[in-house]
């Protein structure tokens, strides 16, 4: 049960503010903002998502630079409230097409309408875009998506290959297309975030893939959909031990550690033929989340060398090699390496980026980054110990490290002429891609 809900801009003003129970003081938004802005407790400088100030519990999540906040005096379930905040953001995005400060400000009356139905007296009533449709009467004022910065993992498709309809991810579920008739289409995105830690000798210490199959449907009449995954997909540790001895990649089966599903998903035939069936509700939602620690081939290898050249100088050489097919191109690549404080060669003393260029790397290629360092004090041969690790972020469209696949996407509708657009898209992103030195 929550008492208030509000959305705050980065500057600390309320874009929407709804008080459901009236048992938290009115100045709570201001108190909250001050707390978060000047957080300094437990030696940490970042406010945790949940904190208590004078008996009021404040929850917040950050979405596209906005703060979605809830307050309560009651000892509630934190994951329920945080989940709810995240869900509210998603519902709003479904309605507005694009979620940002501008679109929120333009549509705040619609947002109030939504909030009225999502929560009553502090209790969640519904967060389903579909259900809410019948209660919402304002037309969204759609803002021009073309001017926008790409946001969120799926936005990668907006700039990518031409085959992809660029506006799809920013389309409101309720607004009508300017052309009149709604386009029948459905998007299934397989988004994987990979975490790899390499030891200083290049050996993989830990690796994990956190994946989501995300769906966004614009199909009228809510037909049933079947998604078939790899037939030999294994789930759980039981199956894993067999494969542990296999070489890292190759023909072996994909084995997930664990997964969970959206509530609309029916798993009747999942155990036999690995198909999921569901009637997709409107709006964007994760069909399935999965986690995999099975070994996989990391897309990049990183080699780092620090050569000391006298007591006050050194050179850093970072070699990045792309170990994927040359038909694939990785983009938005950043490589960074923290250096000791006494490095003077860079204005940012503490954490500087060896290369902050938006690189594109084509599969199979190899790149070497060099940087010369000068120090304000002698290094005592400690430079290697005090710098690093090298961290890399990247996005690789049409690549998935886990080899989990959507084999087919079947839309059950009897008409033979009915052939909606189906988009199945893959993308891999770095979550924590670290090479120690």
């Amino acid at each position, binding site marked *: *049960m929550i008492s*208030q809900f509000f959305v705050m801009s980065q500057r600390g*003003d*309320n*874009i*929407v*503010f709804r008080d459901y129970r*009236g048992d938290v003081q*009115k*100045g709570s938004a*201001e108190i909250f903002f001050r707390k978060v802005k000047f957080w300094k407790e*437990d030696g*940490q400088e970042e406010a*945790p*998502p*949940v904190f*208590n100030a004078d*008996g009021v*519990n404040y929850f*917040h*999540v*950050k*979405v596209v630079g906005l703060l979605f906040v809830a307050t309560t005096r*009651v*000892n*509630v*379930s*934190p*994951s329920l409230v*945080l*989940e709810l*905040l*995240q869900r509210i953001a998603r519902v709003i995005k479904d309605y507005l097409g694009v979620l940002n400060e501008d679109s929120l400000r333009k549509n*705040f*009356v619609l947002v*109030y*309408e939504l909030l*009225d139905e999502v929560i*009553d007296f502090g*209790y*969640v009533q*519904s*967060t389903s875009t579909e259900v809410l449709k019948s209660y919402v*009467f304002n037309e969204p004022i759609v803002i021009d998506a073309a001017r926008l910065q790409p946001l969120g993992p799926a936005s990668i498709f907006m700039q990518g290959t031409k085959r992809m309809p660029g506006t799809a991810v920013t389309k409101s579920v309720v607004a009508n297309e300017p052309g009149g008739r709604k386009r029948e289409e459905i998007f299934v995105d397989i988004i994987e975030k990979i*975490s790899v830690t390499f030891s200083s000798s290049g050996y993989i*210490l830990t690796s994990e893939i956190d994946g989501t199959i995300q769906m966004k449907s614009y199909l009228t009449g809510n037909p049933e959909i079947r998604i078939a995954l790899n037939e030999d997909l294994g789930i*759980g540790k039981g199956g894993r031990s067999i494969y542990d001895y296999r070489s890292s990649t190759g023909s072996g089966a994909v084995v997930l550690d*664990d*997964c*969970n*599903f959206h*509530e609309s998903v029916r798993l009747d035939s999942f155990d036999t033929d690995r198909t999921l069936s569901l009637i997709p509700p409107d709006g964007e939602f994760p069909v*399935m*989340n999965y*986690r995999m*620690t099975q070994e996989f081939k990391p897309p990049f290898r990183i080699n780092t060398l620090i050569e000391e050249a006298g007591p006050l100088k050194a050179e850093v050489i970072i070699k990045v090699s792309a170990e994927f097919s040359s038909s694939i191109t990785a983009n938005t690549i950043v490589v960074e390496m923290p250096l000791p404080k006494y490095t003077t060669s860079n204005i940012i003393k503490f954490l500087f980026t060896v290369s902050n260029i938006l690189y594109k790397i084509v599969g199979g290629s190899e790149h070497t980054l060099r940087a010369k360092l000068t120090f304000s004090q002698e290094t005592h041969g*400690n430079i290697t110990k005090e710098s*690093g690790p090298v961290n890399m972020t990247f996005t690789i469209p049409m690549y998935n490290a886990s080899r989990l696949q959507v084999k087919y996407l079947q839309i059950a509708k009897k008409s033979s002429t009915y052939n909606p657009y189906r988009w199945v898209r893959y993308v891999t992103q770095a979550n924590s*891609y*670290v090479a120690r030195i």
Partner: protein
Amino acid sequence: MAPPAQSQRTQSPSQPSGKGEVSDLKTQLRQLAGSRAPGVDDSKRELFKKVISYMTIGIDVSSVFGEMVMCSVTPDIVLKKMCYLYVGNYAKVNPDLALLTINFLQRDCKDQDPMIRGLALRSLCSLRVANLVEYLVGPLGLGLKDSNSYVRTVAVFGVLKLYHISASTCIDEEFPLTLKHLMLNDPDAQVVANCLTALQEIWSAEASNSEDASREREALISKPVIYYFLNRMRVFSEWAQCIVLELVSKYVPSDNNEIFDIMNLLEDRLQHANGAVVLATIKVFLHLTLSMNDVHQQVYERIKAPLLTLVSSGSPEQSYAVLSHLHLLVMRAPFIFASDYKHFYCQYNEPSYVKKLKLEMLTAVANESNTYEIVTELCEYAANVDIPIARESIRAVGKIALQQYDVNAIVDRLLQFLEMEKDYVTAEALVLVKDLLRKYPQWSQDCIAVVGSISSNNVQEPKAKAALIWMLGEYSQEMHDAPYILESLIENWDEEHSAEVRLHLLTAVMKCFFKRAPETQKALGAALSAGLADFHQDVHDRALFYYRLLQYNVSVAESVVNPPKQAVSVFADTQSSEIKDRIFDEFNTLSVVYQKPSYMFTDKEHRGPFEFSDELGNLSIGAEAAENVAPALMVEANDKDLLLSTSEEEEIKGPAYNGSAYSAPLYDASSPSVSSLSTQSELAISNLISPGNASQSSFAIDDLLGLVPASAPAPAPLPPQLKLNSKAALDPGTFQQKWRQLSLALSQDFTLSPQGVAALTTPQTLLRHMQGHSIHCIASGGQSPNFKFFFFAQKAEESSNYLVECIINTSSAKAQIKIKADDQTTSQAFSDLFQSALSKFGLS
């Protein structure tokens, strides 16, 4: 979001005061109000939008209330909704104007469109104006019977809203019974879920006044109701499922088969993508299997994977909430998670609040087989750019060292930290080496060699400096220049700002003196005279104490300050196991994230429904320690152990400890912490000199000085009315049982005297006072400003008991007591006695 205080807003220059704009709006609205021109709704919409947007940013637009109401006579639903929103916000501050809205809201409640009926009913109930309650009853009654489920869901919460405006009206109209009927019969899942929510809130609030309500509340967790909900689990929305699951977690099944049935039924909920559902399910599993050890452990195994998946999917905020729960489970059963340690490695871009939790988990799961890898990983973090995390990592290494039997490799690592020449790394490592030496004195040779090479000038942090000084004193035999380093530190006495360091310096120089007298004598003299002149009370006292001790007899002094030492075998935990159990009971609530039980951060009324296990849970604090009598002392005894043995850990985990229920007053926290570093016998004495350290010792002093003769209670409390047995005894189990059995005889609120409030810095002070009045405490807890006590007393001649629950809020100077008595006829007399005793608190 009613108008904020004017002063707040007008001060900020960036906000328009809005006065001019608001009066503009007012005129424009007035013009439109009567108009029936085409397109007028559009202009109204624009104006309404403006009003709402002003309202959102905090400009007071309550002055257009009348105009808004006039304009709202419209079929346009968007306009209506905006108007409802507006009215809901300002009705409370404009109760007179609110009356204007009643009319059109009531009419809308009978509209043909169920949507409008629902909206109007919701707005009507959200006005929060007490004198309009009479207008609610009719529409609510109709709403509950409406054929449309949307209207019914709204009406159910309308009842709850009504209850909060006027509880008596709600009860008198018998709405709760209607809700109960709906809950068990309505075809719509959301209506059912709302009924459950509303009834939980209403009956929990009523339970303290009415036996009926508390019976109704109990009935919600009876088998038929629970099964009714369980069987319909699938039809509920994910959010309603959370509510139902929370209810199920309170249910006590009659046998094991039932437990397995429920778990089988809920098994697939663990695969839900919504973390709140999964955690609620896990709570059910954990609570159901508490008494079945093997199964309980299997549950841990089963929930591991879903929890880890939730941690790695979703936003960082969501995964933090789940991780906090995982943290709790790891702390409870580290061995189950020992093989999953890699999941607790920190990732490059994680927020530090996540990293901190992970470090603690890594520390907990370390065992013989994984220590090497975990420590290697932790050492990587020690060079982290995020300094707080780097420090935390070093401490983690130290803690693992203290857990393990084979510390060989870890000691080497710690010593390497000392050689890293980063201030904070050195500082943390010094503190750890000191702890390590207390546990494994056999390592002194290796450590001392490295520590000796550290220049005390490079160590600035008080804790690290204190650790270094302790080692100098303790190992002055082995460290050749120890007396000289101490001497130079004493020369700079005045520049040493930390009292902790000065205290250590005194003790260290004493120890050094007994080992190497000729070299140290001069320094000792200087230290003692500097100490005597010190403005800090503790430093002064200790210097004086040493001085007198030396004067009295040097060999006695040596046996006090420098006796042979025993290694510390276990460093006590900072959180008592009772607190941990409380937090575990409150699984899937904020208690887990804050790592404190709810009574420490919420008022009673906000702890959420179904907290009636509360009292009993609190009692267990006394119950577990209560093997021998003198129950009032047991809580403090616990407290004392906690403080003395873990003062160092306390500093490390400062915030967590501060959350503990029984924290001693701030000022004496430093003295026990120092004494713990010293020897056993020294400890005993420092106990005597540190005030308020523990009531046992304070009693001893009191006895010695004859201040409060414990045997003779102060002026006998009004003997004619009721005489209490001053030596009453009751074991906690019986208390708990009686508390459950007896019905409430009396419940009263009253105000405390300001002196009483001032004296109530810790629960202990009150206990002693009440004992003087023959009222004994069986359990106590809480922290300023909220304290909670359970007292008992016995009639002098017969064995008739009085049980009291007393909640004191020092910030509002309010006390709330609930009395239960074997003999109900005398409960008023006892209440008077109790109050008069309490009112004397702080005056004596």
